[in-house]
C-alpha cells in the first residue's frame, strides 16, 4: 500500500529524505486500498476523528478561561458564556460535542458488531477501540464535573463513593481520591488535570487503532476478505475522502442544530444551579450516554456487586472476538445472529431508558431482566450461535454475486456447452 511517495517541492523532498513522515501519511491516506462497497455506517470513523479534534481544540480555549476551584468554577464557566468572545459558542460546541461524540461512537460500535468487524484478523483494532471507549467514558464523566453545578457535584459524589465498596480499604481509597473527606476543590482540580490529559491519550490510541486497521484493511458489509489492490478495492482518495466529507457535513448539520438552537436540550437543568453540598437533588441522573451502564449498576441490590457488574458490562466487550464463535463475519449471512443482534441493540436501548427512571417496582424488575439478558447475549447466545446457526453461502468476491445452487448448475452447464 505504501507506493513510494515523491514530494513535489524541493523542501518536501529534502524533508522526506531525512524523515519519511510524508511517505507515511501519504501511504495511509491517499492510495490506501479500500473495499468499494463500504456503506454510510463506515463514515463514522472519520466523524469520530473530527469529534476528537473538535473537543481538543475547543477544550484548549475553554481551559484558558476556566478556573478549577470549588468557589470559582461555576462563575468562571458563566464568565466564559458571557464575557469571553464567542465563549458561549465554544462551550456549547464542547458540551454538545461530547454528546454527539458518544452518539457517533455507539453507531461506530454497533456497525462493528453488526458486520463482525471485531473478528479475526481485526481483534486488536476492536480491543484498542474498547480502550478508547473506556477513556472516553472517564473523560466525559470528569468533564461533566468541571462546571460544578448540582449534577456535577452529586454525580461526582455518587461515582467516587462507589470506590468505598472495595472491601477493607474502600474508605481510605475514597478519601485518597477526594484528597480530603468530601468532594471539593482537591477533587475538582485533579479531575480537571485528568480531563485535560486523557483526550491526548485517546488520540494516541486512535493512531494505533488506525495503524492496526491498515494492516488487514477495512472489513466490509459482506464481511468477506478482500484482496488489497484487486478490482474489489478503490483508492481511499478521492472515493472515501469525499464520501466521508459528505457524511461529516450531514453530521455537522445535526451538530449545529443542537449547538445553535437547542444547546441545553441534552443537559440537565439542575446543572445551572451551583453545587451545594447541603442539598441533594431529587433525582441524580448521569448524562444520557451513561444511562445503560447506570441501569446495570442499579440492577444489583449490593453496591460492590453493582460496580463489578457495571465494569464487566464494558470489559466483556474486549472478549467479543472469542465469545462469538462463528467464522462468518457479517450479519447479512447469519440469519439467526441477525435477529439476536437487533434484540441486543433493543435491550441496550431499553437499559438506557431504565437508567433514567427511578429504580423501584416494575422498572427494577425489568432492569434486572435486561441486565441478565445483556450478559446472556455475550456468554450464552453468541458462543452457541456459532455452532447451531446455518449461515448463508458467502460470495467469493465483491464483484461476484452469490449464486443459488440452480444458478451455479446453469453456469456450469453453459461453460460446458461453450467448451
Amino acid at each position: 500500500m505504501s507506493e513510494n511517495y515523491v514530494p513535489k517541492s524541493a523542501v518536501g523532498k529534502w524533508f522526506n529524505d531525512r524523515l519519511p513522515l510524508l511517505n507515511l501519511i501519504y501511504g495511509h491516506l491517499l492510495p490506501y486500498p479500500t473495499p468499494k462497497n463500504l456503506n454510510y455506517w463506515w463514515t463514522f470513523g472519520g466523524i469520530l476523528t473530527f469529534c476528537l479534534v473538535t473537543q481538543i481544540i475547543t477544550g484548549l480555549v475553554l481551559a484558558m478561561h476556566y478556573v478549577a476551584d470549588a468557589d470559582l468554577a461555576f462563575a468562571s464557566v458563566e464568565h466564559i458564556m458571557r464575557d469571553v468572545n464567542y465563549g458561549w459558542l465554544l462551550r456549547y460546541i464542547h458540551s454538545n460535542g461530547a454528546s454527539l461524540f458518544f452518539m457517533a461512537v455507539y453507531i461506530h460500535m454497533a456497525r462493528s458488531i453488526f458486520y463482525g468487524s471485531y473478528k479475526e484478523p481485526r481483534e486488536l483494532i476492536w480491543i484498542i477501540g474498547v480502550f478508547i471507549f473506556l477513556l472516553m467514558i472517564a473523560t466525559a464523566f470528569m468533564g461533566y464535573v468541571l462546571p460544578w453545578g448540582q449534577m456535577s457535584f452529586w454525580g461526582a459524589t455518587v461515582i467516587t463513593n462507589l470506590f468505598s465498596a472495595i472491601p477493607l480499604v474502600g474508605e481510605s481509597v475514597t478519601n485518597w481520591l477526594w484528597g480530603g473527606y468530601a468532594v471539593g476543590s482537591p477533587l475538582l482540580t485533579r479531575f480537571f488535570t485528568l480531563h485535560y490529559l486523557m483526550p491526548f491519550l485517546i488520540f494516541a490510541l486512535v493512531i494505533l487503532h488506525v495503524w492496526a486497521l491498515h494492516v488487514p484493511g477495512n472489513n466490509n458489509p459482506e464481511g468477506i476478505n478482500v484482496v488489497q489492490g484487486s478490482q474489489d478495492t478503490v483508492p481511499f482518495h478521492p472515493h472515501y475522502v469525499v464520501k466521508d466529507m459528505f457524511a461529516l457535513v450531514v453530521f455537522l448539520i445535526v451538530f449545529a442544530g443542537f449547538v445553535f438552537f437547542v444547546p441545553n436540550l441534552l443537559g440537565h437543568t439542575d446543572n445551572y444551579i451551583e453545587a451545594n453540598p447541603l442539598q441533594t437533588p431529587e433525582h441524580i441522573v448521569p448524562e444520557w450516554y451513561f444511562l445503560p451502564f447506570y441501569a446495570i449498576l442499579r440492577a444489583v441490590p449490593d453496591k460492590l456487586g453493582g460496580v463489578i457488574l457495571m465494569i464487566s458490562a464494558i470489559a466483556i466487550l474486549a472478549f467479543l472476538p472469542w465469545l462469538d464463535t462463528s467464522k462468518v463475519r457479517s450479519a447479512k449471512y447469519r440469519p439467526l445472529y441477525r435477529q439476536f443482534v437487533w434484540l441486543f441493540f433493543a435491550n441496550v436501548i431499553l437499559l438506557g431508558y431504565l437508567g433514567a427512571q427511578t429504580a423501584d417496582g416494575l422498572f427494577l424488575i425489568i432492569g434486572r431482566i435486561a441486565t441478565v439478558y445483556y450478559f446472556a447475549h455475550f456468554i450464552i447466545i453468541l458462543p452457541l450461535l456459532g455452532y447451531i446457526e446455518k449461515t448463508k453461502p458467502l460470495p467469493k468476491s465483491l464483484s461476484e454475486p452469490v449464486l443459488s445452487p440452480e444458478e451455479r448448475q446453469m453456469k456450469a452447464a453453459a461453460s460446458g456447452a461453450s467448451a
Partner: protein
Amino acid sequence: MKISKNLFATFLLLLCFSITQLHAAGEMKEPMHPDWSFEGPLGKFERASLQRGYQVYTEVCSGCHSMNLLSYRNLIEEGGPEFSESQAKAMAAAFEVKAAPNADGEVEMRPAILSDKFVSPYENEQQGRAANGGAYPPDLSVMVKARHGGADYLYSLLLGYVDAPSDIKLDDGVYYNEYAKGQKIAMPQVLYEDAVVYTDGTTATPEQMARDVTMFLTWAAEPKLEARKRIGFKVISYLLILSVLLYFTNRQIWKDTH
C-alpha cells in the same frame, strides 16, 4: 428480523422521549405557554419588554433576589435591553457599593458604576434567610435555565397564586401556588395590579409584568441568544449548500465503480 428491529425502533423512540422528559419530576401542573418572541429559529427579544422587565426586577424582585452574574454594563450590550449608556449609568448610580479602602483604611460607600455587578439585597445567605422566614430567595441570573419549563414555568409561577383548597394546611410563610412543586412555595405573591408604574406608560397588569420580567430573566440567563440564533441560521444554510455540493461530487466520483 422484523420483530427485533421494530422492538429496537420502539425502544429508541421511548428513550429519546424520556431523555427530554428527564427533568419533569414531582406532581407539577403543566405551565402556561405564552407566545415568546425569542422562540423559533430566528427569535429575538422585544427590546421594550426587556426594558420594562428590568424595571420590574429592580422595583419588585431585587428586594429579595440577587443577580450576581450581571453587571450594569450588560444593560447596554447588543441583544439585551440596549439602554443608552447615560440611562444605564443613571440606573447603576441609583445603587451604592463599597468603595475600595481609602488612605486611612476606611471603607466608604460610593454610587455603582457600569462595571459593577448588580447590587445584592443581602450581605450573605444567612441574612437572606433571616429576612424570609428561613427560605433563601435564589439568585435569578440563570434561573430560566435552571428550572424545567424555563420561561413558561417562571411566567406561570409568578401568576399561579390562587386560594388554597380547604383541605390543604399551609405553614406560616408558605403560600399556595398551582405551578410550584407540591403547590407550595415560600415566596409570597408579588405581582399585583399596578405593582410598578411603567415609565413607558404600558398598563401594569400582572400578566404584563410577569411577561416582561420573564423576558428579562431569559435574556439574563442567555444574553447571547440573538447572536446564537443568527449565526446558527447562517451556519446551517452554509452547511446545507455544502452538503448538496458534496453529494453531487461524491456521485460523480463513484459513477464508474460498480
